């Protein structure tokens, strides 16, 4: 049982070893660092094998999760920052998915990046003298970054606490920075890398706030219970066991009382109950004691008295619930950044500046899915309000991104917007209560989207252009790529025979729409209904732009004869991974024994991993106590009625989109130019990507620079001006002092005295005539005067 964390830990650390080896010895690994790829493949392949072993072992374990700590970074009393693990079915499944896709992409990259084995002339970089840049190849460095990325990504998956998640969150961010900016000489690449990192940091700021709230109210970062200490999940959702109803209710309903009487009393309790975990135990969402205390402190600080009545009233009004909402929104902020949801979606399309294997691995299959993964992982903590926010953001993103994908002509950008849109679907699913649906779509999407990206890479590799306007008719030249990409397209639009069988995307998208439908029905609210229709309509747009892409690339006449001439099928090292991934894109979610999708091994496994909750709708009340929001429980969407309806709607919309794409781009019934001209304002709006980049530039970037110049100006023109003037003033004062006081007054006095004495001397000089007779007269007069003085003066 304890071997599973060790296995996964080893799978996690292997890429780090590979990274270190390549970092230190990369250039010396074989010819031009070619062996670096073997090291990296060995590491990630080994990780895949270990994950598989863990998967099989996991089947024999009936604990809901394993949690523990490996390493303590810092500790202050009971507060700890640790590196630990939290392993549940989701962890194991994600490990297998990430390592499998990463292995495929590593192989693929050996072929794709072969140019880097020798000197590269970068035609996109023009030097000052007009020539193109020629630089040494960086083959080993690419694999070095890939290994670091795999290590960081697996770190997020295995993470046992939210702080560790944040650590690896940042590390995948920096790997993404390096990989987007892999062509460091290209200004566009380094700008895109900066943009990705900085936009992500905006999300991280929210995440830090979430971390602050959680840590300073709960005192722990751990997800699960470690060594009997309750983790976040148990604090937010204490188990209400039926055989000990009284104690359970106390812990749930009256957190304050338990704080005051026995702070840790229920902690030991909890771990005891843990063993006899049953499906009937409920875990309702409560305001944890720490949050209640923190909120009480704020109230008291604001001048209210913490009397017994007040405390009771606060308790029943769920004081501290707001903190739970802030924590949830904060964590979700981080996810918005990483998963490129509106309003932080702007970085992902630009991230396509990176080499295509990177786009496949980092910017579609794994890293951007980390945001969705974290929402899934953190699901127990989200209140219904937060879930609604997640649903709204996801829904808006899925629609917006899909519309932009219609007009994009860069093949990778179409896929990037499609990724945004699909991530929106996942968020939407999670927000409306479809945990399994969202996670299932995360897995299936990872397979078919990495497949699509790698196919696009194969095409780019062949024609040396990203623009679909340079392609066309490539089906004959590169059949394997074309057909595997067709599989990917069919998977992403959710193709299948309704209610019977389909590709992987069919199952996940059906589940999402079924849950959305349930949500829309349960809450009779215009907005919620609208969200369902948007999601259903999004399926049509998805089908349209995906097949637009496929038709433009592989069918019709070649648009650029020269490029077409030189196009060729990619080498086996690139096409075999495509075949492997197409297999998974088709079958990963297929039920083996029956037609019921919930019996598929993957779905069943995910269902097992569903966060423990109270098995009923999550509701939020307004001030008057009326329920205004209810997030339905997922199992309720498994009814035949909803499934049939949702399945047919999904199928209908997808086919509609597909048909439209066929009309325009295959059968050429309508000229796309004319359509674009007809809707010129909308077309321009979509082509301009809804003007988000321009808007953000005006709203945030320029004001920031403006403000920073003001600050620098304050330093130079105000503070230093003051200081310099103070100094000048002091000097002026000293000079003045010197002039006025010293020179005029002190010196003046001295000089005056001197002059007076001189004058007196002069006056006396008049007496000194040299005339003997005059002297004698003076002596006589003087003697007489002295005599008189002596006689009269002293006699008295």
């Amino acid at each position, binding site marked *: 049982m304890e071997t599973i964390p060790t296995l996964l830990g080893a799978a996690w650390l292997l890429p780090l070893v590979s990274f270190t080896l390549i970092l230190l010895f990369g250039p010396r690994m074989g010819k031009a660092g070619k062996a670096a790829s073997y090291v990296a493949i060995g590491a990630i392949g080994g990780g895949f094998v270990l994950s598989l072993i863990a998967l099989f072992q996991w089947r024999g374990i009936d604990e809901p999760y394993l949690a523990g700590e490996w390493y303590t*970074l*810092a500790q*202050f*009393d*009971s*507060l700890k*920052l640790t590196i630990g693990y939290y392993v549940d079915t989701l962890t194991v499944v994600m490990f297998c998915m990430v390592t499998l896709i990463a292995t495929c992409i590593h192989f693929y990259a050996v072929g794709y990046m072969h140019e880097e084995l020798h000197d590269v002339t*970068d035609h996109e970089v*023009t*030097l000052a003298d007009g020539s193109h*840049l020629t*630089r040494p190849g960086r083959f080993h460095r690419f694999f070095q970054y890939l290994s670091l990325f795999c290590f960081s990504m697996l770190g997020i998956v295995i993470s046992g606490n939210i702080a560790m998640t944040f*650590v*690896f969150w*940042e*590390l995948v961010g*920096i790997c993404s*920075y390096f990989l987007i*900016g892999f062509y*460091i*000489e*290209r*200004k566009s690449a*380094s*700008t895109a*890398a*900066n943009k990705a*990192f*900085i936009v992500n*940091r*905006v999300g991280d*700021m929210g995440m*830090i*706030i979430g*971390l*602050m*709230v959680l*840590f*300073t109210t709960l*005192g722990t970062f751990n997800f699960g219970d470690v060594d009997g200490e309750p983790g976040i999940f148990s604090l937010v959702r204490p188990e209400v066991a039926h055989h000990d109803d009284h104690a359970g209710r106390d812990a749930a309903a009256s957190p304050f009382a338990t*704080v*005051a009487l026995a702070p840790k009393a229920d902690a030991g309790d909890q771990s005891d109950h843990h063993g006899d975990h049953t499906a009937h135990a409920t875990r309702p969402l409560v305001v944890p004691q720490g949050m209640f*205390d*923190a909120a*009480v*402190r704020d109230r*008291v*600080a604001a001048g209210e008295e*913490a009397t*017994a009545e007040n405390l009771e009233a606060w308790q029943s009004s769920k004081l501290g619930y707001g903190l739970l909402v802030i924590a949830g929104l904060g964590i979700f902020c981080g996810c918005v950044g990483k998963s490129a949801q509106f309003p932080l979606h702007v970085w992902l399309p630009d991230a396509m500046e990176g080499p295509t294997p990177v786009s496949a691995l980092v910017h579609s299959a794994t890293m951007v899915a980390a945001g969705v993964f974290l929402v899934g992982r953190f699901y127990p903590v989200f209140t219904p309000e937060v879930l609604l926010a997640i649903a709204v953001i996801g829904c808006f993103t899925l629609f917006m991104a899909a519309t932009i994908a219609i007009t994009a002509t860069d093949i990778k950008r179409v896929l990037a917007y499609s990724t945004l849109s699909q991530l929106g679907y996942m968020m939407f699913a999670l927000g409306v209560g479809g945990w399994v649906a969202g996670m299932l779509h995360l897995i299936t999407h990872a397979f078919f989207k990495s497949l699509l990206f790698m196919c696009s890479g194969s095409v780019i590799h062949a024609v040396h252009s990203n623009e679909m306007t340079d392609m066309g008719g490539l089906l004959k030249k590169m059949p394997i790529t074309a057909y595997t990409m067709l599989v990917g397209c069919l998977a992403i639009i959710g193709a299948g025979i309704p209610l019977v069988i389909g590709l992987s995307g069919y199952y996940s998208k059906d589940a999402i729409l079924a849950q959305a439908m349930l949500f829309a029905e349960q809450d009779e609210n215009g907005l919620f209904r609208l969200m369902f229709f948007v999601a259903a309509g999004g399926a049509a747009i998805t089908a349209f732009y995906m097949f637009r892409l496929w038709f433009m690339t592989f069918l019709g006449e070649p648009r650029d004869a020269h490029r077409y001439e030189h196009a060729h099928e990619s080498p086996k090292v690139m096409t075999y991974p495509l075949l492997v991934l197409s297999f998974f894109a088709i079958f990963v979610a297929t039920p083996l024994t029956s037609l019921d999708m919930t019996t598929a091994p993957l779905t069943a496994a995910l269902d097992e991993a569903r966060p423990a909750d109270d098995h009923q709708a999550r509701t939020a009340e307004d001030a008057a106590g009326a329920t205004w929001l209810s997030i339905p429980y997922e199992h309720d969407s498994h009814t035949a009625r909803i499934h049939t309806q949702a399945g047919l709607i999904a199928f209908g919309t997808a086919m509609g989109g597909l048909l439209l794409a066929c009309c325009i781009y295959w059968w050429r019934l309508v000229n796309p130019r004319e359509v674009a001209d007809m809707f010129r304002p909308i077309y321009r709006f979509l082509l301009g990507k809804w003007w988000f980049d321009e808007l953000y530039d005006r709203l945030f970037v320029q004001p*920031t*620079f403006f*403000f*920073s110049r003001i*600050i*620098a100006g304050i*330093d130079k023109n105000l*503070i230093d001006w003051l*200081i310099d003037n103070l*100094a000048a003033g002091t000097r002026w004062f000293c000079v003045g002092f010197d002039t006025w006081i010293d020179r005029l007054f002190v010196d003046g006095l001295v000089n005056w005295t001197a002059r007076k004495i001189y004058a007196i001397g002069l006056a006396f000089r008049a007496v000194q005539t040299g005339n003997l007779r005059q002297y004698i007269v003076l002596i006589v007069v003087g003697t007489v005067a002295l005599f008189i003085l002596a006689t009269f003066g002293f006699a008295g």
Partner: protein
Amino acid sequence: MENAALLWLSVLVFLPAAGALFLMLPIVPRSNPEAIKRIALGVTLATLVVSILLAIPGMQESSFSFDPEAVNKMQSVFNVGWIPTFNIEYFMGFDGISFPLVLLTTFISVLAMAASWPINKYVRAYCVLFLLLETGMIGVFLALDFFLFYVFWEVMLLPMYFLIGVWGGPRKEYAAIKFFLYTLLGSVLMLIAILMLYFKSDLKVLAESSAIDNGQLVAAGLVTDAAQADAWRAEMKASEGARHTFNILALQLMGQHTELFSRPVFGEGGYSLQWWAFVLLFIGFAIKVPSVPVHTWLPDAHVEAPTPISMILAGVLLKMGGYGIIRICYPICPEAAFDLAWWVCGIGALSMVYGAFAALAQKDFKRLVAYSSVSHMGYVILGIGVASVMYGGATSYWSMGMNGAMFQMIAHGISSAGMFFLVGVVYDRVHHRELDKFGGLFGKMPVYSGLAIVIFFAGLGLPGLCGFIGEVLVVLSVWPFSKTLAIISAAVVILTAAYILWTLQRVYLGPEYKGPHGEALTPITAREWSIAVPLVIFAILFGVYPRAVLDYMEPSVSQTVEDLTQWGKANNFARDDSAEGEAAEVSLERRAEPAAKPAAPAANREARVNRPPDHNLVRQ
């Protein structure tokens, strides 16, 4: 014990000065600058070795001890009379707060000396001043006598003035005089505060206080062992008039356990003596940190100073401000610290934001790094400041904040010294620092660029590198203090990322170098490599194994927090009757001020009303 400590610490402090004296002897060849630099480097290395010997537990009699009995107290304390007339003592020792900074000093000094090779002007004078500077720096961290502390503080100031003013860049005179006047202003304010505290201090009160046990007297270096404590008390009681002292530890005891510094200075109802002392000391230290708005000497000093002096300046000198606040301001003036918490935190947060914005606007590479220092040192002030409002509340968050601040000082010492060195490397080659005239260095100097990226990411606060730990500990501890400041400090991570990444893009990335002297951009030399690599190694080590630092500092920092918490509980939480009774027991002579008094005497005492109401929580 005492003799060993006397010997070792004196050697540690005065070895560089002795080296400086030696360099002034006529036997040192005047015509051989290379030899002089070698000797100076040897001296700094020897000092580093001494400090390492003291760092390894059990290596020496007076080495740092992790014994749970000793680890949170002053260690290797010795106390020898110096100027008995004024009770000035040659009194030194170290604990977990000062010792890591001493190690940082000796370490950075070696690297900075090694980075001094390109200096060819008046080499002998340069080395002499450099070594004197090192003595001053180590002395400041080790001194426990306030007067001695001040002497070392000034010893450090003068060499720095000349090092900037003689070996600096084009505007060196301006920068040097600006540095000197700013710092001198701080010193003068500090001197006033020192004298205020000195003339109010009275060991007699300490001796008579029942709140002070003999162990505390020993820990404060007033008596050598507990057996003599009673005799000392009797002697003190018998003496006539007040017994003033410069002993920092004794002043801390007086600040926390007696009423000596709590009386108003200018008539009844005014601010207390410790309020004034705190303000004066804080301004003095804030200039050194430097905090906005008294920071403008730093960019000029950095831009004009030669590379090694910038390394010392950013790596060590700035830390003295933070050290002074933790060691002196807070423990001696706890009440003022509590009252002014909002100001301290506000200044910290302001520095973080202001420095980051200003860095974003800079066009000079070194100026940018200097402003990043202002921003990063803001975390230190904030981390120290948030603590003071949590008296009696969640002590561990406070402890985390202060530890984070201390860690940030060490981390910043590594990363900023590294950044300045790396700027110096390119400056030595192309003789300009215009950010817009770089680019493409990655292609020309790959090893250098790789090292630079690690160091800059350490400054950015990337997990796995040293900058992250300090920042995250500080930022996490802010929320209970103020949600607004917490959000502001969280927002700074965006700006930091922006200015660091933009700098990396402009300097290291891109197709080609855009400035003059492109042909001079040769790969880094072995000497440069061996300076940068240790910094990179420590940046990584402290990032993945922060306990290498925290194990040293955490017990002492937490002890400081604990002491202040006790003080807070004894005084500021005496709200209801029972707690008041407790407070009265703890210190009889203190006024047990009813803290919830609605009309606080001054506006900035509002903070007191806002304190966490834990007693009420437990009361039910």
